[in-house]
């Protein structure tokens, strides 16, 4: 499938970040005035395990180009075990996306702690570059034939 990338096209990337680790790490990146691409928008959730696979599918349906789910490091979850569920759920999720013809790299899960501001910056920058390379998501997108 060939995709015509409009000039100046910027991907839309949605990042679900858990309140206790990654969201705090993202805030810390701000406090330290680190710089990263603008195309990532964060949605705050209490725990990465709150993210229902339905949210991810909906994002792709609505034309999101990439989705990132971030939580505390395995073993460090504020809610003890939440991120283990996240990990298991989203391993399956990747398979489902692949089955549906979506490049699984459009969906990524990462563990970033509250003190890892630099890791947040680097992750967001890398994911943003990867999604840019993949181009716009047209697979699932509602009304893509119009």
């Amino acid at each position, binding site marked *: 499938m060939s995709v015509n990338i409009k000039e100046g096209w*910027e991907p*839309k990337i*949605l990042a679900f970040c858990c*309140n*206790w*680790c990654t*969201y*705090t*790490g*993202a*805030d*810390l*990146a*701000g*406090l*330290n*005035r*680190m*710089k*990263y691409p*603008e195309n990532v*928008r*964060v*949605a*705050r*959730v*209490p*725990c990465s*395990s*709150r*993210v*229902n*696979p*339905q*949210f991810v599918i*909906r*994002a792709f349906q*609505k*034309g*999101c180009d990439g989705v990132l789910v971030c939580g*505390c*490091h395995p073993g*460090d979850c*504020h*809610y*003890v*075990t*939440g991120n283990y*569920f*996240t990990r298991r*759920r989203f391993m399956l999720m990747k398979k489902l996306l692949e089955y549906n013809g979506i490049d699984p790299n459009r969906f990524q899960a990462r563990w970033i*702690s*509250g*003190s890892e*501001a*630099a890791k947040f*910056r680097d992750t967001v920058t890398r994911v943003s570059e990867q999604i840019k390379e993949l181009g716009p998501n047209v697979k699932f997108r509602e009304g893509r034939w119009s």
Partner: protein
Amino acid sequence: MARIGVFICHCGTNIAGVVDVDEVVKAAGKFPGVAYATEYKYLCSEPGQQTIKAAIEEHNLDRIVIGSCSPRMHEVTFRKMLMSTKINPYMLEVANIREQCSWVHTDKEKATEKAIDLTRMAVAKVCKSKPLFPDSIGVTKRALVIGGGIAGIQAALDIADAGYAVDIVEKEASIGGHMVMLDKTFPTLDCSACISTPKMVEAGAHPNVTLRAYCEVESVKGYVGNFEVDIRQKAKYVDHDTCTGCGACEVKCPIKVSSAFNQGMCDRTVMYKPFPQAVPSKPVIDALNCRKISGDGKCGVCAAVCPLKAVNFEDKGEIITEKYGAIIVATGYELIKWQDIYPEYGGGRFEDVITGIQFERLVNASGPTEGHIRRPSDGAEPKDIAIIKCVGSRDINKGKAYCSRACCMYSAKHAHQILEKIPDGSVHIFYMDVRTPGKGYEEFYDRTREDGANYIRGRVSKIFKEGNKLICKGEDTLLGKPVSVEADMVILETAMVPATDISKLTGILSIGSDTDGWVQEAHPKLRPVETQTAGIFLAGTCQGPKDIPDTVAQGSAAAVKVCSLFSKVQMETSPIISAVDREKCSGCEMCIPCCPYKAITVIEIDMHEHGKKVKMNVSDVNSGLCQGCGACAGACRSGAIDLKGYTNDQILMEVDALCL
């Protein structure tokens, strides 16, 4: 139809400097459901809050969105403000357009576009918000202090004096930290041990204080008011309940290793107390170096001489689980490993190049030389001594960018002590700047110069040996000339760095740290002893380099925070917890294993179906146990269990709003 008010904050120029606030307001005004949109310079200020309150009345708003700093910063402020209005405090969403927008981007157009998107997401989410009401729970009135340096001791004593129980967890065999290692303290030159050991003894004897020396925190569960902490008691090999601390075993222990307390300048036994005034005043066995435990198994002298049979070579340590209402982190500092980064100072090859903390032991009457200043190589009294400041501090190439704050003062102290003990000696201090902010500090520095200390402005670029002398070569930047000082001994005033393993601890506690590893305070000015996690506080040098007066002030400040938490009979709990829609629940029980708090159970209820009464199994959430992670909501196939404040509807609206 919702009537949403959108308020965008400039935060001075913090937001407005990068984001075009007017554009955001204009865009927000057109979002569905928005009845009113405006901006203000500082929304968190009193007049800012008044503006919001007035707008709520004037425009009959029923929910609001605030575009400002992180919700972790002021969500609470704005919720409190809403309590005095007709709007429920949970009918609020905060769009983080500072930490996650204006502070991390420079392209104004793109940042503004992002701020608009973030605001749109918040507006969409708040459309589906519902009023929520908090519950209340009890507070465990017992505090945990991690680290028994002067910061931790001060905090523990203040909490204990207020009538609350407090535990000190210290990883070494005695509390005291660095302060007991020091000889005298600037600017008053009072003996450090004389002022710190009474405090240690007081902590050891206080009925409200439990000392847990030789322990480390393994894991922390729970939340403010209700933490559950696993503490690992390392194997001591001595039963401290039986041991009286008579010292017979220490005297007879045949194996000697270098004493960490004396900075490697003399030996200690393997059965040891770190120093004579240790609290608790009972020994432990350094298992790694013990012949009986880690060697050929032939020894056991200590057990033989112990009159009370308190020695137990089989000790494996144990895990102690305790409940606490609040935690104070006071893990202090360590000194930078200069040997690896300063090969030009010998990298540790020259015995007579020592550090400031080694010098503290050298001048101390109970130190390795009983207080006589003698150089390590030959035990001779050094006459000419060079002091080099900022070794590792203020050195972006080799060390740390920051200033270690106490060194200017303690190097003046060291100079004073040398000139007092060696009247015919000379002291040359290499410095970059002399920083003496503090009461009586500048006067102390002046006195040291009058004593005869020779201050040379410049860094030393090389130290090498010539015969018996150490030659320090550098530049006197005031004269613009190279200088060379012949010294008998050199003292390096090295940088303070965070305790090893601090990142492990911040991970266990889920608290932040800065790029250098120091524990991050919730706000650098206004919340200096709180962390971002409610109920966890900090004190002393774990937050950054500082001297004893500042450390003690923080210890007391953290104690007040704990006491004010404990003064509440009941604490309000967050209403952001899960709830089950019984009509939708099929009783599949998928949610139950997801819950880390065992808050979900199955109950049997009566339902009416086709006019008939039937019994049904449905999930039920215990609101006291639920912590609001939402793992259950992520697993529910029928969407029956949902997390209040982060419902499926709310998040889907947010997702849709982003993709628009």
